[in-house]
Every structure is written in structure tokens, then in C-alpha cells.
């Protein structure tokens, strides 16, 4: 089977998976006690006619399977319903915040990967040296740390004690939307995300580098009398980075959902904070739309990883 048909087949499977996951999200939301209508049904101050009217206006009076069909069709066509809390289309509520999340996530993704890979390579050059031990222990140290607590500690030191950086949010009124103002708000959440996630990439790169250096073709290259530098960076590194590609794919979803904690601590007005607030407000149209976006992102990044992997590793045959 050729590459094109492989890609097409994978995309079809991915779409089916999106529908399935969206279905599971719907079922969980509607079957858990305390689902969408409970608030309305248990509030004694809402009279029965009012209740019927409210239910009808949100389409909650229809049978569950009709709601389900409307939900699935709506998700794929961008018609995500009206937020119970903001009383605006859920699509609009989310669209306002997507940029903010990307502003935090994209730089932290890039920084984590670059710094992680560099530290991993430097550790692998001399395994079990003092440097290697220090980097590995430090990576583990931050990996075991709750992101929200690390954020807290950084805020206490840099915002409360030293008064160097703002205590949260994305912009300040005094800053007037300048770049330096934005960067000063971005610094702490960014550092938190990078530190907590660094171990994923540094430990992985280190181990796969050490593994690769142990293989026969490296011995062959040594036998040919190639220089250490050439072997390390040209022959070994390329292959050692393959697992990192897989990690990156998994990491996208993980970073996205992990944003809930970091954004909450730093009051960063992105999708993570919105997820938390919507759960608190029981704002089901927004919750379901956010879950849909998260699922699509996770499935899409897994798909992209598989396809890129195929290009990078000649041993993988598309089939």
C-alpha cells in the first residue's frame, strides 16, 4: 500500500475515533448524576412552566437521542450551542481564548523540547558523570512536583517578595498592551511548564542516545575511523531522536489538558482556565465543545506523529 492511501486510511480512522470519543464525552456528561438538567430540576424557585421554557430554549426537552444527533452534527459544523453562563455562542466564547492558550503553549512546547533534547545529549556524552547525575536528578525532582505548587512558589518569590513580576493575568492596565508587559506576565507560567515537563524529553533523549551508541552500526562507524563528533552528531543523534518524535505527539495532548492547572494558578485567560470555570459553572455547551477540541487535538497530533515517524524511519513500511 502506498503512502497516499495509508494517509487517507488513517485520516478516516481518526475521524471515526473523533466521533467515538465525542460520543463518550456526551454519555459521561449526561449519565453522571448532576448532569445538565439537574440544576433546573432541583431548584424550587423555578416553577414548572418556567422550567419547561428553559429546557425548550436549550433543546433539553428533546429526547436524548435527538440531542445526541444534534450534538454530533453541531460539533462538526461549528454550531456548538449557547453558553449557559456567558449567554453567547460557545464557539464565540472559546474563540476568544484560543489565542491566549496558544501564546502560552507553543513557546513552552518549543522550549521544553529544545532544552530537553540539549540536556539529554549533553548527559549522554558522558553517562554517569557528575553533570549527567545532576541533570537526571534535577529532571526527576521537577517531574515529581505538582505544577500548581511550583507556580505558587515562583509567584511567592518573584511577585510577592521581590515584586519583579506580576502576580497573574496576561496584561496589566498600566502596561497598556506592550510586548514587555506581555512577556513579564508570560515568564512565570512558561518557566513552570518547562521545568515540570523537561524530564520527559531530557531523560528520553539521554537513554535513547546511550542505546543507539551501543549498536553495531556505530561500532562499524568507529571501525572506519570516523571522528567521535561525526559519529555522535551525524550517525547517532538522528536515530536517537526518533522516540522524541513519538513523545512530542503524546505531549501535545498532555500539555493542552495540563494547561488547566497552570492557567488556574496564574489566572491566564486561556482554554484551561475556561475549562475549570465551565465545570464550576456547569456550563455544558462550553464543556462539551472544549472536550471536543481537546479530543481532536490529541487525535490529530497522534496521527501527525505516526505519519512523520514513517518518513523519518525507513524501517517503517506503510501498510
Amino acid at each position, binding site marked *: 500500500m502506498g503512502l497516499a492511501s495509508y494517509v487517507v486510511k488513517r485520516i478516516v480512522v481518526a475521524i471515526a*475515533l473523533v466521533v*467515538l*470519543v465525542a460520543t*463518550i*464525552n456526551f454519555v*459521561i*456528561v449526561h449519565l*453522571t*448524576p*448532576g*448532569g445538565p438538567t439537574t440544576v433546573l430540576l432541583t431548584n424550587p424557585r423555578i416553577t414548572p412552566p418556567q422550567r419547561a421554557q428553559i429546557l425548550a430554549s436549550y433543546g433539553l426537552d428533546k429526547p436524548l437521542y435527538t440531542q445526541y444527533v444534534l450534538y454530533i452534527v453541531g460539533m462538526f459544523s461549528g454550531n456548538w450551542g449557547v453558553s449557559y453562563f456567558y449567554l453567547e455562542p460557545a464557539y464565540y466564547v472559546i474563540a476568544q481564548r484560543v489565542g491566549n492558550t496558544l501564546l502560552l503553549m507553543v513557546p513552552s512546547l518549543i522550549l521544553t523540547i529544545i532544552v530537553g533534547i540539549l540536556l539529554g545529549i549533553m548527559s549522554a556524552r558522558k553517562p554517569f558523570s557528575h553533570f549527567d547525575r545532576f541533570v537526571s536528578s534535577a529532571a*526527576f*525532582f521537577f*517531574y*515529581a*512536583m*505538582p505544577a*500548581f*505548587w511550583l507556580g*505558587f*512558589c515562583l*509567584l*511567592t518569590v518573584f511577585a*510577592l517578595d521581590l515584586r519583579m513580576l506580576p*502576580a497573574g493575568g496576561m496584561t496589566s492596565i498600566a502596561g497598556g498592551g506592550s510586548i514587555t508587559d506581555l512577556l513579564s506576565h508570560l515568564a512565570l507560567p512558561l518557566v513552570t511548564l518547562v521545568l515540570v515537563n523537561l524530564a*520527559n524529553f531530557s*531523560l*528520553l533523549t539521554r*537513554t*535513547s542516545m546511550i*542505546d543507539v551508541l551501543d549498536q553495531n552500526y556505530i561500532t562499524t562507524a568507529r571501525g572506519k575511523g570516523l571522528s567521535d563528533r561525526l559519529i555522535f552528531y551525524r550517525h547517532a543523534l538522528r536515530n536517537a531522536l526518533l*522516540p522524541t518524535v*513519538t*513523545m512530542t505527539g*503524546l*505531549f501535545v*495532548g*498532555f500539555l*493542552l*489538558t*495540563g494547561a*488547566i*492547572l497552570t492557567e*488556574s494558578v496564574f489566572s491566564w485567560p486561556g482554554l484551561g482556565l475556561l*475549562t*475549570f470555570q465551565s*465545570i*464550576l459553572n456547569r456550563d455544558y455547551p462550553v*464543556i462539551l465543545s*472544549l*472536550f471536543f477540541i*481537546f*479530543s481532536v487535538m*490529541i*487525535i490529530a497530533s*497522534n496521527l501527525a506523529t505516526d505519519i512523520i515517524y514513517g518518513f523519518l524511519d525507513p524501517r517503517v513500511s506503510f501498510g
Partner: protein
Amino acid sequence: MQFAGARDFLVAYSRNKGALVGLLYLIGLLLAALFAGYIFSVNPNTPYLSRTLLPPSLAYPFGTDYLGRDLLELIIYGARTSLTVAFGAGVLLALIGTVSGLVAGYFGGEVDGFIMRTADIFLTLPTLPLILLVAALAGPSLVNILLIIALTSWPVMARIVRSNVLAMANQEFILVERVMGASVKRILFDHLLPNQMSLILVYTSLSIPIVILTEAAIEFLGLAPISISWGFLLNIALSYWIQGAWWMSFFPGFAIFSTSLAFYLISEGLKEVLTPKLKRKRESLAVQLAGKK
């Protein structure tokens, strides 16, 4: 690897100093949590309005909170919450993962396909938001939180056990058993399972920090508040942070961090002793774990 006895095992395990420290820390915490009623007052929730928001001192090493409760006491009692969820969810996810992995690997075919596709779907769910939502809807209960975490974190364990079973299913001693007409139950639980125990133990101890961090996250966001838990203590500290009561957030957070670190150190030690051959494979476990934190 076989050990003549518990003593040999402990000697081998103790060679890793970090693992030993982790184990001693955990035993200390467990004992303190168990006997908290004898060490401290019986009800840590009693407010003492004469001693609110005291910074750490000799009398109150971790300080006191806005109700005058002793933070050291709250943290020791809070260990009960964290450790219950940690061990409960750990055992449950190990159980679900092991049984589904064994069955999938041994029977193969459609059974395998069904179980592994289910696992794949679980791996593509937005886990943390879902856990938070269900915890918020189902209400604050230790059992709910424990169940939710276990039910969303078994797939990686299932994958690991399955791939190991596949590698073993065609080995001679299993074939011999089959030819001799041993029951499926006997092959699965008397032969395949014991050979997986090291791996299961190592992986379970590796998953527990993630369980602890997830439980703390649910509590920290205050979506299903259990009054005496490390995460919820941090949540309360949010309101007193600006007044400079750093100890209210520092110590509960440090408890979460040090306990999850202790489990990592223990899993590292177990890995070296129980699965020496796995050294190369270990980071593939780390890859599978990513995205589950």
C-alpha cells in the same frame, strides 16, 4: 529474579540509596498517618481562634492556618487521604490493567482487538478534564476520586502486560501445559501471571506519583473538596497567599511533592532489583507514561 528471602531482597534494594530513603520516608509517613490520633489531637479540624496565621515556630513547626489549626497536624491527617487514594487507585489500576492485558495477550484475535482498541480510546480521551468533570459531578468522596483515577489509567498497564504475555505465550513450558490439557485459568494465573509480577510491581509504583498528583489537582481546584487533604489545603492557601502566609501553601505542596518523589525513588529501586534485564526498555515505559501525568 529469585531471592532466597526477604533479607536478600532488602540488601539488594538498599544498594540504591535513593530508593532506601524513599522507602523509609514512606514508612514514616504511613506510621504517622496511622497513629495520628495518638500523636495529635483527635480532631484536627478544631479551630483555635487565638492562634490564627502563626508563622512556623518551635511550637508549630509548619505554622497555623486562618482557623488556628496546626498545619503539621493537618498534613499528617491529610496523608490518610493521599495515601488511601494512592494505594487504592494503584491496586485497582494494576488489577484492571493486568487482567485485561493477560486476557488480550493470551486469547488474541477478536478479544485482543476489542480490549486493545478500548485501551486506545481511553488513551485519546482528554483525561484530566474528564476526571475533573466527573469528580465535580459525582461529589466529594474518596471512593469516587479513587475510582475515576483508576478507571482512566489502566490502559498503559494493559499494554505492557499484553506485550509481555505475547512474548511468553509460545514458550515451551506454556505449550507443554496446553498439550497436557491445563485449564485456561491455570495457565493464566499460575504460569503467566507470576512471571509478570515484577513488571506489574515496578509499573504500579511508577504510576502512583501520577495518581497522587492527579488527586492533588482535583482537590487543589476545589471541585470535589475533601476538607483534610493536601490539595485542598493548597486551595485554601490561595486566599491567604497575598497576606504573606507562605507556609500555608508551602508545606502542603511540599508534602505532595515529597511523597510523589518517594514513590519515584522506590520504583527506581524496584526496577533495578526486579527487572535487571529491562534496563534498556525502561524509557519506553516513560514514553507510554507521558500524557498520563
